[in-house]
């Protein structure tokens, strides 16, 4: 069923409209998708995934700031 397979468009729109920077927005989209997958599969562990995702977006943010 569609609603169980993707993130509610209302949430995506609100993330896009928000004033937070692109890395926070990207991070939220990624963790929401992870949560959705874990929710359906009932995986209890989350911290490694979060830690990795935080590192990934912090790194991207750092690189982008270095460029400018």
């Amino acid at each position, binding site marked *: 069923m569609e609603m169980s397979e993707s993130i509610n468009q209302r*949430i995506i729109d609100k993330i896009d409209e928000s004033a937070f920077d692109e890395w926070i927005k990207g991070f939220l989209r990624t963790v929401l998708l992870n949560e959705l997958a874990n929710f359906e599969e009932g995986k209890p562990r989350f911290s490694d995934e979060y830690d990795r995702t935080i590192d990934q977006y912090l790194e991207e943010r750092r690189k982008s700031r270095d460029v400018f």
Partner: protein
Amino acid sequence: MYFDYIELENFRQYKNTKIDFSRPEKEKNFIVIQGANGAGKTNILNAVTWCLYGEELHIGKKYPGLPVLNIDTFKELGPGKNCEVKVEIRLVEKNDRKIVLKRTLNFRKTEKGDLQTIPDIQSPYSDGSTLIMMRQTGKEWVPVSDPRFIINRLIPRSIQQFFFFDGEQLDEYFKGTAGKDIYEAISKVSQIGLLERVIEHLSKMEDSFIRNVKGLSSNAEEIRTRLETYKTSLNSQRSELTQKEDVKREAEIKEEEFSSKLRKSSVSRIPELEKQRNLLKEDLKKLESQIDDFESQRFDSLLKFAPIIFSHEALSSSRDSISVREEAGEIPPDYKRHFIEQLIKKGKCICGIDISDEEDKYRKEVERLLRDCSEISEISDEIISLNVEIGSMIGRIKDFKEQQERHGKNIKILEEDRQQKSKLLKQIDEEIAGTDVEQIKQWEMKRLEWQKIKEGIIGDIGAIKKFIERYENIQRVSESELKRELQKEGRYNRILEKLEFCKEAKKAASEIKDKIIADVRRAIEEETRKEFFGLIWKKQTYLDVKLDEDYNISVLHQSGREGIGTLSAGERQVLALSFMAALNSVSGFDVPIMIDTPLGRLSSEPKKNIAENLPNYLKGKQVSLLVTEEEYTPQVRERLFERVGRSYIIKFEEREEGNLAEVVPFVE
């Protein structure tokens, strides 16, 4: 989404019936199933909820405890033989994909002739039934591994009553838990739960980053330990708050249950007194909130004026002192800086002495005068402007007095009203409690017990909330302190960066969650209001329909009172219909609607009004109406005619041991 068919086998009075719900034309989205009282209309509704949730949610007094197995089937069964009860529903989604749900429960007739249920030992359902769900994927039918999860996504069990409607049970719809159930269901469908999990996990990540900081200085270590203690206390208080709120909710439901019994009792004066008591309670609640408003306005005004009031004496004395100096001609000074500058520039004093020589002793005297004058002028200017300011500040005390008097007067009026109403309320309490009807006494006693529990809990909840608020502030301060300490130590920049990222992401997720909740709530409120005023026949009687933050619905009566308790059965029906339509259109639920005795409580005029308007506001939804002949009058039929795609009648045989029924197409 719509029902394609519903098939019932050995389910209650239906031995073998298949009802075709498919739409012959898109516009003809209404299905009408007519049946006399007791024919088996409600059991079609029960078959739907049993198939979806494993429970007959609209069971009446007649059936509890009785097995779902058809009596004839049981009779015909030989000793030691098994049989199966089955309800199968085929649903069609918007994209034309089909889903089949099949629930079964097995029975056996023992050698002695008794009925025995054979539960599925792996069944998660209390009755031991089995549910199989198949989804159409292309031409294939694929079994779904967790049908319960999918059903709860499609039609959450907690709010099914807004889609599978029993007109006779409408009083239950707007009770205490409804708001919480609706909020939870909307949260699920809007995926707010996902955001809540993100927020929860980010909080845990923050804690873990702080925990993993090793070898800190003693100061930072002390702050970290303190922070962990605060977090533990906060978590335990939050969970206590949730528990207390649950108890409060239960107490509200129970209180309302006994209040409703009193309202419906046949003992003379009691229903009237109970209605009056509810109105008085509403009034008191409103008065208390108005008094609170004025009290806080009075307090705000006091806070605003406090500095002026406390320094009133000093201000007055300064003003007096300035006046004395002004009168003595000391302020402003009697000569101006500009004038002395001109004398020096021209090299001639006012008395005629030449002062052009820079070394001249008179010139030096005039220059000293200029230096002193410069200071005096500045101070004098400041004193003059200060005097104006002091004057205005003292003048504002008058405003303060007026404001305090006004607020005090308003509070006094409201307080008198409150006392009068409290006295009346006490009289009603005493009159009801003093009745000589034992049953009424007991109901009143129970109602009071729950009211006391509720009131006690409200105090506890307030105290816990204050504790949480205070500790959240302390926690924030400690977090900043720890951040500063970590910055000092330099080694932890990487962890600090991650911690800050976590905080920012959590803030973003919380803001988005709040915005979505507010948007959905506002939209449902607007839609309910629109539908309610479109359908209600006494349009002037009610002013507004509101949905609070907990999704509890209220109606504002023209008297200014909360009017949900005063709605007639028909008006409550209209409100429930409006709310259901709003939930349907706003929340993202795409659910077929089935209403049992939809017009049963309505008199002729409202009946026609609803029949005329119902199709418009449930546009695009499949609506099945389970009606009696008395409800489905020629006028109603005429108004619905163009929208009815299929029409059925329940043929039934009334028998001592239990009815037998069959749904057949209705032929005029």
